[in-house]
């Protein structure tokens, strides 16, 4: 019926027709068939989103999607196990999923310049984020929050060392603690015989040599790795068993429960590795906290 068209037009017309046929076959029929199969008992609840409910039957979330267990002002609620840090929107926002995407050598913070009003140039480096979280969790859970390359106050221990030249050679003329804005007192008094100064907005830290101070923190910090790093999805529903164990005493105290009781709940909500060797053992935080709520109310 298109015999009178030129060859190229006929070819594109055939291509379009094939495309439309496949749009119907794999674009509509296939997903709708899967949708129909997903209505089968056993599959239906999962296909809907693995929702979980409270005692009254209200949906309180999905067992696959993590939540923030913080109060209205953003502080962690002591009676709840806390999830990992999240880079999804304001935290655990499924409409804005994201990882931090910050690199392994992202160690220097940027600070807001009050001169440019309405524009906030401040950004915490990944190192400072890790140090701050470790510091805060250490304080919250009564553990040693120190980490390598972190100051005692919980920022990245980074110096900009300025030389007389040429390049990064010759006498050291000035040393700035990169992540401590004045008037903060620097974590180090002197470096290479030169007093360390706090950072001002006028300092061009890229002109100095970057020196990281390891400090005396243990190589295996008490606060576990997952507790101080954001997940890939920003929705990670789980924490490591180590981070759960760290939180047991605090949760037990806040709820007036025996630590052994809370510990046994943690164990009940720990999933091992699939087949014994896939992935990592992990604790589902929402389900654990729901189980706690079933025992005692969270806020006392």
């Amino acid at each position, binding site marked *: 019926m298109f015999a009178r068209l030129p060859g190229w037009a*006929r*070819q*594109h017309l*055939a*291509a*379009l*027709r*094939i*495309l439309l046929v*496949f*749009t119907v076959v*794999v674009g509509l029929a*296939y*997903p709708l068939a*899967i*949708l129909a199969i997903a209505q089968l008992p*056993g599959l239906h609840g*999962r*296909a*809907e*989103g*693995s929702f979980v409910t409270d005692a009254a039957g*209200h*949906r309180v*979330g999905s067992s*696959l999607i993590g*939540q923030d267990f*913080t*109060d209205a002002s953003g502080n962690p609620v002591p009676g709840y196990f806390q999830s990992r840090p999240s880079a999804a929107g304001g935290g*655990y926002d499924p409409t*804005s*999923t994201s*990882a*931090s*995407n*910050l690199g*392994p*050598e992202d160690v220097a913070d940027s600070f807001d310049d009050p001169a440019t009003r309405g524009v906030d140039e401040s950004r915490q480096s*990944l190192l400072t984020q*890790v140090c701050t979280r470790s510091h805060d969790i250490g304080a919250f859970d009564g553990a040693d929050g120190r980490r390598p*390359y*972190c100051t005692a106050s919980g920022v*990245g221990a980074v110096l900009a060392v300025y030389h007389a030249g040429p390049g990064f050679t010759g006498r050291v003329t000035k040393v700035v603690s990169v992540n401590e804005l004045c008037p903060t007192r620097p974590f180090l008094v002197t470096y290479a015989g030169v007093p360390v100064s706090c950072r001002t907005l006028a300092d061009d830290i890229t002109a100095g040599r970057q020196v990281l101070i390891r400090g005396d923190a243990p190589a295996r910090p008490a606060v576990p*790795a997952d507790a*101080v*790093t954001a*997940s*890939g*999805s920003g*929705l*990670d529903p*789980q924490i*490591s068993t180590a981070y759960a164990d760290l939180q047991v005493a605090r949760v037990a105290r806040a709820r007036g429960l025996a630590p052994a009781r809370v510990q046994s709940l943690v164990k009940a909500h720990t999933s091992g*590795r*699939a087949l*014994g*060797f*896939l*992935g*990592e053992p992990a604790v589902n935080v929402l389900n654990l906290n729901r189980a706690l709520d079933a025992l005692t109310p969270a806020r006392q």
Partner: protein
Amino acid sequence: MSTNVAGALAVALLVAALVITYRPLGDHMYRVYTDRRHLRIERAIYRLTGVHPDSGQRWPVYARGVLAFSLVSVLLLYLLERVQSHLPLGLGFAGVAPPLAWNTAVSFMTNTNWQAYSGESTMGHLVQMAGLAVQNFLSAAVGISVAIAVVRGLTRRRALASAGDPGRSGDPGRPSRGGAAGRAGGAAGGGGPGSTGDELGNFWVDLTRTVIRILLPVCVLAAIVLIAGGAIQNLHGDRVVATLAGGHQTITGGPVASQEAIKEFGTNGGGFYNVNSAHPFENPTSWTNLFEIYLLLAIAFSLPRAFGRMAGDRRQGLAIVSVMAVLALGSFAIGAAFQAVHHGTVPTAVGAATEGTETRFGVPNSSLFASATTLTSTGAVNSFHDSYTSLGGATLLFNMMLGEVAPGGTGSGLYGMLVLAVVTVFVAGLMIGRTPEYLGKRIGSREIRFAALYFLITPILALLGTGIAMGLPGERAGMLNSGAHGLSEVLYAFTSAANNNGSAFAGIGVNTTWYNTALGLVMLFGRLLPMLFVLGMAGSFARQEPVPVTAGTLPTHRPQFAGMLAAVAVVLVALTFFPALALGPLAEGIHS
């Protein structure tokens, strides 16, 4: 059990699964492309669309089919994105802006699935299902079709051809043009439908069979398995719940499982959600994680079996797959080791390379996914490469720079490796003074020119694009990270686009008119030009009468040849990309 032992066992299980499927899946694909009969549903499709399934196509016709199909695919997807606010299941999202719609349309048509948008806040369910996921199927099918056409060109034995169907042009609805009577005849090895003379098969038939007989049945099963694991499949919009701590959370819905299956099996990689396979609704458990890795490797690792059988010598397929396996395992071992020892400032402070990884997967299974996704053209991620250790990230970049041949994308991996084999034979021929021939076909100046063009185009696109972006101050500002890591972000973006991978050092802000346009062009040229060159090479091989094997023939099924092939692959990449790598991830990785 220690984390590393568990990680090693996961790899062992994956390898075992791939070894077990090599033969049945490869044999199935061989039968699909050499079968002379058509299924009833296929006949119906041919009738609906006016395709003459039994007519063969010479390489220019085959290539024009690929181009025409690519063009209408981009146009339809672009249109769907633009008008989505008027379509059902649009979730209230506005039409996608033109630069982003162009970028996304090209990205999905080219099997790249680079995503400058965030799925959960940009695309309605209908565009995801009937637009993006359709291209997931079809772009994968185009890749496999081209690979099969290339194999037909290499293995065509006209001397053995039996008399048969007089050649008809592959133009649908058009009577004979190309096939002169002298070229008539079927091909040996069951050269497939419409085998006459120097024809490469029929693009529309290859495409249809790939979808109907390979992709669709496996995806139906895979989607059900994923739902059983917890992946969602519904048509809901956002649902708001009151959380335990007294806040609110908006939980998204969508036809995720059906899209997830083809996203992996077709080595596409475009996530339903922004965070791709890290999202618990896409990849809920550690076993779905391994299952998804298996799916994205299965076709690419089994195609060499189909190749070997079409060549009438299974050892040829084994040689190719062993090179793929050695490169893949080597690269994975290096990348996983870098992640495990977590060199670098932040990883040392943390005590592990856990930034951007999910608890349920852990670091080893995240590294495994990352290697698999960059060694193929998938680009799905279950953890965020931008936050990998410098040298771990460099390994992923290197995987893509390898041209994605170990095992590569669906189809593109095999044809990439076959071009490399041609180059290797040529290099070996120069070294030992033998006439270069592969599978009995002489490699003359025309063939090697096509092979060289094939290999030059991707680095040109990747390096030129990176260079231009770094030269423009506004585009430099798109980097999230500064210094060497910022360069890595840009280099990764263009390498990923040129190789049709689609993964990213995702900190970079690429939803700008410049990046959307430039990366769109890079993806388009990075997909179609190599396809044209490789089809051209296949066309000129198809015209040749194979020469008999003599004492002077370099055997291409022995370990010696496999070793040379692997070396050529690595050396070509190292020579091309080392300077760029040295300025980016290597500079970052060795400074501390």
